[in-house]
């Protein structure tokens, strides 16, 4: 359980944020300059808030009213930085041992061998950080933070300096950590696909303030948030389970509470829970079921509300049963279809619009 309620002043920039999080992975999400990094730095003790309180698992790390301000080295907060920050004058093995040695044996919750195995560090142990690839460096940095046996792990855009294949690789490792170690993780990112894939709950930040917090699907479904998540990022998240694979067509069916979704072949076992993000620009609307069209997914929906218009574009909030969905249309189309709250429509989604990047293993 992470409790944060702080005001931080950095020159003219003020971050005022209050949130609590109890999920395995909490995402701090927002554009650059929204105050995400300042907040994690405050949790780590690198930045001192003007006032407020920070607690992890019931242990107070900072409380201006009580005059508590633990030094970073006393907080037991693991920190994985954007650019790894491995000690360049030490081997990977020495980097891993750095925090482990400083942790009293009674407080260690994970052995070195386990971390080395989990993160595939065995072949890297004798190497120097300068000779590692970006992904290897990040893995070693995660291992180094874990071996200090932290009570919470902060990851500040750990994928930002990596290319796409490395990103996927590290994401898989982070999922593994979540499942294997049960360590709470605060994951800072401005990339929505990372958040939907990893996080269970999220805190949406803009200009140093919390705009929304809660479950990832819930927060993302709210139309007023979409301006902050970026125009082409907007969309809804559907919690589903893998229903079946069709070997012949290479399609996978996902069952969610109010229907089924067909996506291009997914590498997951039937029954496995997944989270699919459907971008609003990938959703088209029709008043009747199209008779000859390529859309694999035709979902019966009801218009809930018409969102704010920006230029020629408008977001239409829908419900498929109880599941929220957002369609991004031109204003002209919305008028032509005479869309209004309560109107019955069919949401059309191409199977390939839901790619593997936007499906996370819950």
């Amino acid at each position, binding site marked *: 359980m992470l409790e944060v309620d702080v005001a931080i002043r950095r020159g003219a920039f003020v971050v005022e944020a209050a949130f609590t999080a109890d999920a395995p992975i909490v995402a701090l999400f927002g554009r650059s300059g929204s105050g995400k990094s300042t907040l994690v730095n405050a949790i*780590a*003790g*690198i930045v001192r808030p003007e006032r407020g309180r920070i607690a992890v698992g019931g242990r107070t790390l900072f409380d201006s009213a009580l005059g508590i301000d633990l*030094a*970073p*080295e006393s*907080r*037991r*907060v*693991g*920190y994985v*930085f954007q650019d790894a*920050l491995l*000690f*360049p*004058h*030490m081997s990977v093995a020495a980097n891993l041992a*750095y*925090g482990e040695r*400083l*942790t009293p044996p009674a407080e260690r919750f994970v052995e070195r061998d386990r971390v080395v195995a989990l993160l595939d560090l065995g072949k890297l142990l004798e190497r*120097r950080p*300068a*000779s590692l690839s970006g992904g290897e460096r990040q893995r070693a940095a995660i291992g*180094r*933070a874990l071996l*200090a046996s932290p009570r919470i792990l902060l990851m500040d855009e750990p994928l930002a300096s990596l290319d796409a294949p490395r990103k996927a690789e590290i994401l898989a490792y982070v999922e593994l950590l979540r499942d294997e170690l049960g360590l709470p993780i605060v994951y800072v990112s401005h990339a929505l696909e990372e958040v939907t894939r990893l996080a269970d709950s999220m805190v949406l930040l803009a200009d140093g303030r919390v705009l929304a917090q809660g479950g990832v699907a819930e927060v993302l479904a709210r139309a007023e948030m979409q301006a902050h998540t970026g125009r082409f990022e907007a969309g809804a998240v559907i919690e589903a389970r893998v229903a079946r694979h069709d070997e012949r067509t290479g399609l996978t069916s996902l069952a969610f509470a109010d229907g089924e979704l067909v996506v291009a072949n997914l590498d997951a076992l039937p029954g496995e829970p997944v989270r699919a993000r459907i971008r609003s620009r990938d959703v088209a609307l029709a008043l009747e079921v199209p008779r000859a069209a390529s859309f694999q997914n035709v979902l019966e929906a009801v218009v809930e509300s018409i969102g704010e218009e920006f230029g020629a574009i408008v977001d239409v909030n829908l419900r498929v049963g109880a599941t929220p969905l957002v369609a991004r249309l031109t204003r002209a189309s919305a008028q032509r279809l005479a869309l209004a709250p309560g109107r019955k429509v069919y949401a059309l989604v191409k199977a390939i619009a839901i790619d593997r990047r936007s499906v996370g293993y819950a």
Partner: protein
Amino acid sequence: MPTREELEVVALSLKVAFWGVAASLPFAVATAFVLARKRFPGKTLFDAAVHLPLVLPPVVVGFALLVLFGRNGPLGRLLEPLGIVFAFRWTGAALAAGIMGFPLMVRAIRLAIDAVDRRLELAARTLGARRMRVFFTVTLPLAWPGLVTGALLAFARALGEFGATITFVSNIPGETRTLPLAIYTFTQSPGQDAMALRFSVLSVLLSLAALAISEWLVRRTSPRPADA
């Protein structure tokens, strides 16, 4: 071949320079760290004071040492009961050498500390290391080449120290007559030019050796990977 007398002078010079640098090195590291990493009122003044030996005439430094550490100086009188005497002793020559080389050392080490990514220090702290440990396990090892460079510069400066030494501890054979003082002595006596030349050659050889050793030291013990 160098004569016994020449070897004595060289040995004394090395002793004076070595102890001058060795004794001032910890202070130089501390000063460099404070200048690189701390902000406090009067920092500019402190910085200027550290650099004073670099810009003052050495004779003035020597005179100041004489006034402070002489038998009747305030610090000299304070230290004498403890068995620490600088006046007209080789230790005084080492003190003068250390002080003259101090700003050179501080400058080189400060640059090296400046170049150490502070976020590495923060990373070390989040892993549970206190400030002192961070300094000795992260900052200092990464600033190591600057430390060696600074120590060498100061050592070379100490070998060449003349003005402050002769003013403070005079020119006593076997006690304070280092290489430059010996050369000076010979140039002042008629017909001793050949001796002055021999000592000068020795001086050059010594400096080259110091340079080579420090190069080797940096390369041998540098913690940074050579092919980054």
